[in-house]
């Protein structure tokens, strides 16, 4: 690891000021579970490392009266996975957090760091897309809010500017929604080859869905929403024919990549398989 200067501000505005002053050479340190190994391998060598670890407001989970939850960027995966309230009110997000890497990584890894790193196959993005989450981005220039889908712009690239901090994740948690995340990977600690999340509102007493949202990660370079598959699953009775048709459309909709873990063709086929499984588990009210 190359030498760097280190700062540990205690407020978000101090962190934003440091980042603005040294934009381009400063990097933010969240849980460090991706950045520090990359720095050890000299893939990243910041001149200044600004730790967000001593900023209390970034560690908070705040439940809104309307049912949504605001999650500070520095809340760890372990906290999410174990939060009784999240497990009850938004089980799919708690479950996705529990599928990231190993407990060792989850003890320190944060939701904000995970999203800003934008590793292909990361678990939370698919779920947060399905939940219609937003991210709050803070800088000295002010604050902006982005739909989560727009955060991911390319392979390990995000919409964050060099002076910006991903400070909060806002998640609507609608009651009575079917919600599921299914993950296909080689080993349990691996990123997803195919990760599919579905969040839907029931219609016709549970035999059909309205307002279906589907997020997928791991298949292509960036996580994405499967809009045409959503349409295919909306409205009508959720029978075998409809599920097969949605799976066929999902295979068309994705833009799969080839890497050491699986070919594009394999990822495309497994997208169809996993979408079918996700629908059936969501109908059965299983969160995984």
């Amino acid at each position, binding site marked *: 690891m190359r030498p760097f*200067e280190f*700062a*540990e501000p205690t407020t978000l505005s101090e962190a934003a000021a440091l980042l603005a002053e040294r934009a381009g050479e400063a990097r933010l340190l969240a849980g460090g579970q991706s950045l520090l190994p990359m720095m050890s391998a000299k893939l990243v060598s910041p001149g200044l490392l600004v730790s967000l670890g001593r900023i209390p407001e970034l560690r908070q989970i705040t439940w809104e009266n309307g049912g949504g939850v605001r999650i500070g960027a520095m809340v760890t995966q372990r906290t999410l996975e174990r939060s009784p309230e999240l497990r009850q009110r938004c089980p799919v997000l708690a479950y996705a957090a529990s599928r990231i890497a190993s*407990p060792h990584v989850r003890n320190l890894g944060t939701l904000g760091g995970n999203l800003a790193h934008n590793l292909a196959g990361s678990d939370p993005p698919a779920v947060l897309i399905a939940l219609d989450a937003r991210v709050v981005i803070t800088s000295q220039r002010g604050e902006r809010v982005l739909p989560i889908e727009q955060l991911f712009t390319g392979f390990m690239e995000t919409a964050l500017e060099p002076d910006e901090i991903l400070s909060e994740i806002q998640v609507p948690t609608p009651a009575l929604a079917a919600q599921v995340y299914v993950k296909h990977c080689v080993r349990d600690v691996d990123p997803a080859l195919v990760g599919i999340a579905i969040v839907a509102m029931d219609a016709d007493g549970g035999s059909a869905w309205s307002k279906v949202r589907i997020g997928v990660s791991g298949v292509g370079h960036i996580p994405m929403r499967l809009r045409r598959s959503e349409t295919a699953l909306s409205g009508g009775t959720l029978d075998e024919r409809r599920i097969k048709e949605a799976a066929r459309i999902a295979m068309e909709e994705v833009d799969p990549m080839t890497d050491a873990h699986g070919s594009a063709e394999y990822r495309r086929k497994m997208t169809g398989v996993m979408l079918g499984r996700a629908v059936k588990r969501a109908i059965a009210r299983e969160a995984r």
Partner: protein
Amino acid sequence: MPRATGLAQAVQLTVNGKPQQGVIEPETLLLDYLRDHLELTGARRGCESGYCGACTVLLDGQPVHSCSVLAVTSRGSEVQTIEGTDATVRLLQEAFVARGAIQCGYCTPGIILTAKALLAENPRPSDVEVRVAISGNICRCTGYVKIVEAIQAVAAQMTGSGTRAVTR
């Protein structure tokens, strides 16, 4: 407001119950601080990328990969390494030896610390819970069957409810 403070940083933390303080470069990993500054070599350097778990230590009671933690961000924390032997660690060490859950030993300190943290929170884990808990630790000698058995033997012993005999 805190400025970027240049290179050396003061740290103080508790390691195996003993307060430690020093002045270190910010790029010092917790792993390097333990090994090179405190000469506690039980945490091993392995993959240096957060997979293998050879460098596992307990940070405020929770297992972490010390290759993926800066010493400066561990300020004020309590760290336990395998050298900080206590009653549970001792039981686990004995069970690992008795059941052949140890061969080359490179992964063993990390797995024992991980098991200690697991049993502190979940005194009677299922085999699946043990396997999930140690998923951040890789053993390339024994496979995991004997490791899971050894951890379960200690769980049974500590809760006084076990039936699995420890055999040599």
